[in-house]
């Protein structure tokens, strides 16, 4: 992982999470902006997948356990898909809150991935 890109992902995921939570508790149903914010987080995660594959060949290998990193990354990529589907089964304010919960969960996972990538095993 590359630190500045991780920071971008974190900023987007946290912003999306807070945005969706606020919109949800304000009674708004999912709209293009709230769902779109999750789509943006997902897009960045897909880019992250490509980067994670290419990075070791570019001199930036994962210092932590690649299995743990991979499990986190795959989980992070799948979560918005399942989360958005679950949220949109019902079009209510709680659906928007769900989007926010998913985005904040992704922020935590992204942060964990950065730690795993940069922390040597056993450290």
């Amino acid at each position: 992982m590359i630190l500045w890109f991780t920071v971008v992902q974190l900023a987007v995921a946290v912003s999306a999470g807070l945005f969706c939570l606020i919109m949800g508790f304000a009674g708004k149903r999912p709209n293009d902006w709230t769902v779109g914010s999750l789509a943006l987080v997902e897009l960045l995660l897909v880019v992250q997948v490509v980067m994670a594959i290419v990075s070791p060949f570019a001199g930036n290998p994962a210092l932590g356990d690649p299995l743990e990193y991979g499990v986190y990354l795959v989980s992070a990529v799948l979560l918005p898909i399942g989360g958005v589907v679950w949220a949109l089964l019902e079009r209510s304010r709680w659906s928007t809150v769900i989007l926010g919960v998913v985005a904040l969960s992704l922020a935590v996972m992204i942060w964990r991935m950065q730690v795993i990538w940069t922390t040597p095993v056993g450290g």
Partner: protein
Amino acid sequence: MSTARPTTPSDSSQPEGSSAAPTRPRMRGIGRVLVIVYAVMALGATGRSFVQIARAFDQAPLAYTLSAVSAVVYIVATLALIWSGRPGWYRVAWVAIVFELAGVLIVGTLSLTHPALFQHQTVWSQFGLGYVLIPLFLPMAGLWWLVVHRPSGRVPAAAPEEAAA
């Protein structure tokens, strides 16, 4: 926490194309938020448990077995909550969430009184402190949900679903 159901028009009692009998309360509103939190915990616990067991089971078999058990409990709780409108799954949800609460409290306490047993982190160590105490409060929220949202009526002798079908 208000238990009033959201009254948005989309929350009409029509089953969304499913064959659920209208007497069953659907998983709706804030309950769906509960489910997604459970699902995220299940996802995280499963992933972590998988990696722990694959990598280093010998190092801490008790802690890692607990990780696996907690992952299973979260998965079962998630599914049972989704289907908790049916009496059978409602009972499963009760069992799973009570087990989860007991797990958090017991493992949490032991991790503080007998830290040697839990040198490797599990979801329930220190009452879920590593997960911002979500593992501690989540089962309480789950039990609240189950208490407030019983499936309508006891398991009837003549199932109303047959009459409504």
